[in-house]
């Protein structure tokens, strides 16, 4: 298990290198530059700025310097947010994004799995059909559509919840962004859990468990849930990635001071180091979360445990 983890971490290094390289060259391929403003700057000033940030060097040289700095943990200065370097900006935004993302993930996981389990146990009855209809709707509508609708309805029309803003993570401010972010994942998780349950409930070993005289509750808890959760756990990695990337847009819509806001501003402003820094941090997180999801997979299935060597 330890060897498996270490090997996976070793494989992560070239992956991250590829991510850094791709984001570096893609950002540079985008037209425009960080200092393009409506009033044209004096060419001399511009040249000084370029020199100050090392942008006058050949591209490959810049790439080499950038990688060398990143390897030392230095993402460089922000080109647009003066007096801030990228690490500081991420340190400001990440706690907000993390709080939002973790809450949304927990909501999606707990509510989604519960709905899926109950739907499977009430197979083909009203609860099942109602949940699955709602789940289909949840999957079909992207969160950037749900978010403004939620804000309009609960914020402007009912005036129950704030339309936007963070307010230091007050519960009322978190409700709508969390719902918008969790909903699509919740829907997918509910469907996966229901599918897993229905398949396992038909399995021979469930019949054996019933033939042993175990009450249905014990059959489900001891013999069904663990196997039924396997497809769900396989999806945890992609789900977390979905929530993290979804968060970029949701933060903008609800005006939350998370990493997402910096990322989108950075992309619009061609703030190269900022965008690349966030891409690398998010890439690392997604790789780590995927690894955790694989380890959870092994915890659920003893046969998988044997193959992780």
């Amino acid at each position: 298990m330890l060897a498996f983890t270490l090997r996976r971490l070793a494989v992560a290094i070239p992956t991250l290198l590829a991510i850094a390289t791709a984001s570096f060259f893609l950002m540079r391929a985008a037209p425009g530059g960080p200092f393009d403003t409506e009033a044209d700057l004096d060419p001399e000033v511009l040249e000084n700025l370029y020199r100050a940030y090392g942008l006058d060097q050949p591209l490959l040289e810049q790439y080499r310097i950038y990688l060398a700095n990143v390897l030392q943990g230095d993402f460089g200065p922000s080109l647009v947010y003066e007096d801030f370097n990228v690490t500081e900006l991420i340190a400001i935004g990440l706690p907000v994004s993390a709080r939002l993302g973790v809450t949304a993930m927990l909501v999606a996981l707990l509510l989604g799995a519960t709905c899926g389990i109950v739907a499977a146990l009430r197979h083909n009855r009203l609860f099942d059909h109602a949940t699955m209809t709602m789940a289909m709707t949840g999957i079909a509508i992207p969160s950037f559509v749900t978010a403004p609708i939620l804000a309009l309805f609960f914020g402007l029309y009912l005036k129950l919840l704030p339309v936007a803003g963070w307010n230091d993570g007050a519960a009322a401010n978190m409700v709508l962004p969390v719902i918008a972010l969790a909903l699509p994942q919740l829907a997918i998780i509910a469907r996966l859990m229901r599918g897993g349950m229905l398949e396992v409930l038909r399995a021979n070993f469930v019949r054996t468990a019933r033939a042993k005289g175990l009450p249905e509750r014990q059959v489900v808890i001891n013999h069904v849930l663990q196997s039924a959760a396997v497809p769900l756990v396989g999806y945890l990695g992609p789900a977390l990635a979905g929530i993290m990337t979804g968060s970029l847009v949701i933060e903008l819509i609800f005006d939350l001071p998370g990493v997402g806001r910096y990322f989108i501003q950075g992309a619009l402003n061609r703030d190269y180091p900022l965008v690349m820094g966030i891409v690398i941090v998010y890439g690392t997180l997604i790789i780590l979360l995927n690894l955790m999801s694989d380890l959870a997979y092994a915890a659920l299935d003893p046969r998988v445990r044997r193959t992780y060597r």
Partner: protein
Amino acid sequence: MTPLLEIRDLTVRFDVGDAELTAVRELSLVVAEGECLGVVGESGAGKSQTFLAALGLLAENARVEGSVRYRGREILNAPRRELDTLRGRRIAMVFQDPLSGLTSTLRIGRQLEESARRHLGMNARQAREKALEMLQTVRLPDPKHCLDLYPFELSGGMRQRVMIALGMICRPDLLIADEPTTALDVTIQAQILGLLAELRRLANTSVVLITHDLAVAAGLCDRILIMYSGRPVESGTTREVFNAPKHPYTAGLLASLPSLATDPATDLPAIPGQPPDALVTPRGCAFAERCEHVMDRCFAERPLLGGTRGRHAAACHLVSP
């Protein structure tokens, strides 16, 4: 005396889309205290479905009619709570494929202990002891180590031993063994059958052995019931059925058994044709299409399994005109 298990006019149907499939048709049988009954028939004859129905273990799309009495008490369609006190405790079932029949995510010990704790009121330590004792009884090598293994870590024969241990752990009155040796090779098969015979003597448990293999049934059973297309076609003691089969289907099955004296160059005699579709109910004898002694009457009128209880009988117009 009330028999241990009495099944009367059991009919099992499955809803499959628009159609209805009949797996068991008005079947009656009796299992007496301490006896071993072999239920023999080819795939789809309704052997397993009969006993799954009796224990309320059928799939959700099944509909069941008739009566199943355990020691005189009606248990067909009984509430789950009542079934749970019976299943595993009084009537246990051993299934065919022990790999898919054991929970892959739980250790062997845990799966055995679960039964002991539920039915015998044991605490964790006692249940552990009991589980170990059962693995010794079914003669699993290194039983202590096996308690901590997962089903996939055992061989097929070992898994089947675990399955039997699971069935016998509460010393049930009746053990229903559904093709317990089908997935095993011949030497292991002989060992498992020997084990069943031994446990039977040890605990005076009645056994229903469901099999498609007449030879397997002959080795273990006192009485045999031959099933065809959801109905019993012949019943009698093992000796009667083997020595003087009354139904042409039974005779055909016996004729198609290979023996060491059979010349390998010649084809074994086979019964021509296929069993009828479970979607339709034939008006006459279900075997008529394949029978070499067929008469006009066979298509018009269904023969009944005549004879009084316990006597050698066959559902055929040849024997009960």
